[in-house]
């Protein structure tokens, strides 16, 4: 059980971090002046939500499997297939949670408007510098929302994870799968325990992060 808890936390944290790294530039690019192409990409970003997780997992399994060119490529890079490994789980979670990170970020980026960027440019800040010193600090709320949604969603997700993870203890058996197993095998007492624990844990974590963010924002105003 401890295995599963650690694995879950590791997966959720890693997914959130990776999605921050991937999602921030993507959302920023999408938030810049729009066009049909961007709107199409933005729509694509939401697509992982359309498919039921198990079905998405099924397609990922095929895409990452030995029959697909992508899977062969990845296998040759990583030395072994990524399916049924923790890395595979991370890839699946990242794809599935992409909209959770990108959508709130894009909205926040858009709400900043062009004035702060213009001001920063006249003060000799390069676009990259502006991004880090102006855009990101002004987007704290969006970053927080995106991270919380991603983290929480990864905690609860099991369809994709079950499919490409293969439920291997210590490697791909996360809490959500364990919980599901208990419900299915009618061991409800254990299911209640995990569900309660996860809810309490997430509640406390999210609330603390929210309060910390609020305080630090207040602090920077002193």
């Amino acid at each position, binding site marked *: 059980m401890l295995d599963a808890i650690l694995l879950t936390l590791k997966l959720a944290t890693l997914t959130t971090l990776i999605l921050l790294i991937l999602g921030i530039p993507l959302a920023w690019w999408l938030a810049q002046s729009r066009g049909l192409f961007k709107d199409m990409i933005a729509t694509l970003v939401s697509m992982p939500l359309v498919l039921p997780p198990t079905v998405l997992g*099924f397609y990922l399994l095929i895409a990452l*499997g*030995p029959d697909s060119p992508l899977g062969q490529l990845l296998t040759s890079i990583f030395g072994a297939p990524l399916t049924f490994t923790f890395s595979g789980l991370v890839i699946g979670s990242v794809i599935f949670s992409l909209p959770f990170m990108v959508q709130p970020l894009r909205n926040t980026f858009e709400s900043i408007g062009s004035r702060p960027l213009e001001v920063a440019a006249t003060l000799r800040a390069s676009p990259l510098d502006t991004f880090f010193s102006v855009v990101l600090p002004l987007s704290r709320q969006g970053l927080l929302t995106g991270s919380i949604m991603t983290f929480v969603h990864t905690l609860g997700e099991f369809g994709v994870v079950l499919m490409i993870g293969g*439920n291997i203890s210590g490697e791909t058996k996360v809490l959500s799968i364990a919980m599901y197993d208990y419900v299915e095998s009618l061991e409800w007492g254990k299911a209640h325990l995990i569900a309660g624990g996860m809810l309490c844990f997430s509640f406390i974590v999210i609330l603390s992060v929210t309060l910390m963010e609020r305080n630090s924002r207040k602090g920077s105003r002193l």
Partner: protein
Amino acid sequence: SQYLPADTARIAVSSNFTIAAQKLALLFEQTSTHTIQVSSGSTGKLYIQIRQGAPFDLLLAADMERPQRLFDEGYANTAAFIYATGKLVLWSRDLAEVSSGLDVLKSKAIRRLAIANPKTAPYGKAAQQVLDNSISSPYPWTLVKGDNIAQTYQFAASGNADAAFVARAQIALDQRGYAWDVPQSLYLPIHQGALLLKRGDNNPAAHAFYRFLQTDKAKSVIQHYGYISQ
């Protein structure tokens, strides 16, 4: 609305038996005025749903345990009967060696072996028994577990697992790959129970289908789909 005319029965079918059940319903409807609606799900889910008042008249489960529990808990007036017994096979898409038995599991040819989750799926439990009886751990391959027998088959069919313990039913209609029937001696029989629920007691359609299941016509269909049916 959820109340159907009396000549329609809803049967809850364990996922692994869905296709067979649909075929049976079709045959049944040809010879009677009744209609059958099939709802599939994992046996665990169906059990919970029935306890919570799901409008099912008949349950075709994947095991005997849960129908028995439902009967004990008063959700049915008659005990379950075995409508089918599942057969476990070792299957591989690419490895011809599986046809010659369990020895392949000791070779280096297999890196990943898929079974259904022994905790939730009867075929998983059976596969675990086979492994426990014939191979000592640690296994030379990684054991991956599908949520149910369908996922297990998908693992192997997509090439992600080199071999899998699946149900005969899954490969009965599709002659791809290589299969080896696991001797019945290596695992406890996978009896699947049919339970006429209290709700179906007053439903002529449910009764009729319940009786139809025990006809030879039905049994031959069930056998055709890879189950043992006496």
